[in-house]
């Protein structure tokens, strides 16, 4: 039996509350913009991203029910204006379908396709974020997770300048369990 894989899948479904010092200075941005970061618990990349983001992180387990309920409560009560995710595509879909009901719109989508031990990145949407992340990934492809976390504050305000960028192939770090991740942001209004 695939014990290691199964152990990943059984990672507990909790809201991770890490000290701000563990994160990339997201604290004030998160408080002001009422940001929530959503990640899967099932692979090294998403868990590394969660660690980088510190608090405001909502972890999605193999059964996303609890996470979705929590998010919907926050959407309904206007506790969140912006959701950023790094996840499997199925979980992006679920969060997005709920968020749409509360007048959120997607303003960024990144596709991180993992094949044969390497990632390619296709980024589209929010101009400043795409520029910053795209440049960082090209400069240091191994650190795309860190670059993404470090760029999140650029999403603090909308950017109607649509950008699209397809980066070169980047070596993956620490991933062995997933083929296809997406990053995304949903903004109210």
């Amino acid at each position: 039996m695939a014990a290691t894989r199964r152990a990943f899948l059984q990672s507990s479904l909790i809201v991770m509350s890490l000290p701000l010092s563990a994160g990339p200075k997201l604290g004030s941005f998160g408080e002001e913009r009422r940001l929530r970061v959503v990640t899967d618990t099932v692979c090294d990349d998403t868990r590394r991203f969660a660690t980088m983001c510190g608090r405001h992180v909502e972890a999605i387990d193999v059964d996303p029910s609890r996470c979705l309920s929590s998010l919907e409560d926050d959407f309904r009560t206007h506790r969140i204006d912006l959701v950023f995710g790094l996840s499997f595509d199925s979980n992006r879909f679920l969060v997005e379908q709920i968020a749409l009901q509360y007048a959120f719109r997607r303003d960024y989508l990144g596709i991180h396709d993992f094949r044969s031990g390497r990632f390619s990145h296709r980024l589209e949407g929010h101009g400043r974020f795409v520029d910053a992340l795209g440049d960082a990934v090209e400069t240091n492809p191994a650190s795309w997770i860190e670059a993404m976390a470090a760029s999140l504050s650029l999403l603090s305000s909308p950017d109607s300048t649509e950008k699209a960028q397809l980066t070169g192939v980047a070596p993956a770090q620490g991933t062995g369990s997933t083929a296809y991740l997406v990053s995304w942001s949903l903004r109210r209004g």
Partner: protein
Amino acid sequence: MLPEGVVQADFDNAIGELRDALSPNAVIVQDDARYTSYTDAYTPRQLEDNAPSAAVAPLDIEQIQRVLAIARKWKIPLWTVSTGRNFGYGGPAPRKAGCIVLDLKRMNRIIEVNEKHAYAVVEPGVTYQDLYRYLQARDLKLWSDPSAPAWGGVLGNLADRGVGYTPYGEHFTAQCGMQVVLADGTVVDTAMGTVPQARSKHLYKYGHGPWVDGIFTQSNFGIITQIGIWLMPEPPGYRPYLITFPEEDDIHPITEITRPLKINMLIPNAATTVGLIWEAAVKVTKAQYFDGQGVMPESARRKIAQDLEIGSWNFYGALYGPEPIMDNNWKVIEESFRQVKGARFYSAADRAGDAAFDYRAKLMRGIPNMTEFGLLNWLGPGSHIDFSPISPVTGDGALRQFHVMRDLCHRFGFDYIGEFLVGWRDMHHVLMLVFDRTDEDHKRQVRELFTALVAEAAREGYGEYRTHLDYMDAIAATYDWNDRALYRAHEAIKDALDPDGILSPGKQGIWPGRSRST
């Protein structure tokens, strides 16, 4: 985007009247951020092909009546949804682009739960998750029977004749009592509910005279606003189990063994025989085992089976009741299935930590969850539409249907991702067609495959129990004995109850008179 035959000025007038009649916030037009939530996110075509012109979300029956009056006045078709989450069959989107979606999810009251008689009465917006939480919060010893996704609507799933996994798995069988609003605004309580101060409204289904509840399911003859549903009393014991079988053709003996066990209720629940990839995809992706294009090779399938300790078929069932009864039933079940060479038996303890077993075990005891969506990651940006023919519970029938469906899937480059759910005398064969929604070629291929499946199933004598928006007409056309006598009867009822043709045109292939030639 406008409803067919409606000019912009009339549409604008109707939208204005709807806002006045409900509230501005209850009317969602195309520049509203919420509008996208009314499209078919999993469409194998383009979003516009089934896009609504607007949506309207009433809070109660009185508001529905106002909406109907405006729709009749301006001849604007409405497409009714309860929660609109059934994405394998089209989600909230209308069959015909331009309809206004009548979204009932804000009508979300659990009106009554009766523990003594074990039933609930719910409005359309109540999800399985809502009902489960309600029962848990009050420590009521009752189970609901959820569809695989927790966000499914109790009423909507029943009205679409959906199925679950407990002994109450055939949802319409558990229905008792219904309230319907007709197109002219008349509110009808069916069966016993129409007796003044009815005392048996949710206890006896049929009342006096014709029993009409069925004609409001999978139809467009009225708007169901309330439904009674029997719930299962919590049993004193529960034991889920999994039996794996190594070979694809084992579906024959599995089915032959299942039939008498089910008919004699030794298998009390809607047990499920799950194909290898459906079982695996909750836990792994295709690219982890096969980096090429098209159908996964047999060697990769064998590797998955070995790694995950699963079979070509994986039979999920459960025992319910006092321990001695479960012990006795298990002996019979185990002895029966042990006749199949290579069968392996697993309890919950054996599969502790197994995500696939865990979500099946939850479903068979009425705990809603969302795990099954994970299998769409099989292909990365996966979407799905489902092809769902009914099979007899016979080895020959199941094997034949499996071979036909699998071979067609493979011919079009798709993996077979399917399962058989056993009902009282039938099996629902659900074939999940997972496709890459970012790939226009793949979308075209899945459309072609679906069309071929409908035709081939009809040739073999199989009908589908339910279908995606895009194939409602095609499947309706296969129910055509005696010069479409059944559908001509449907159309006569449609004309009588909805002469303006405003309710869900095209639902299950039933069109109002003015659209029948299209």
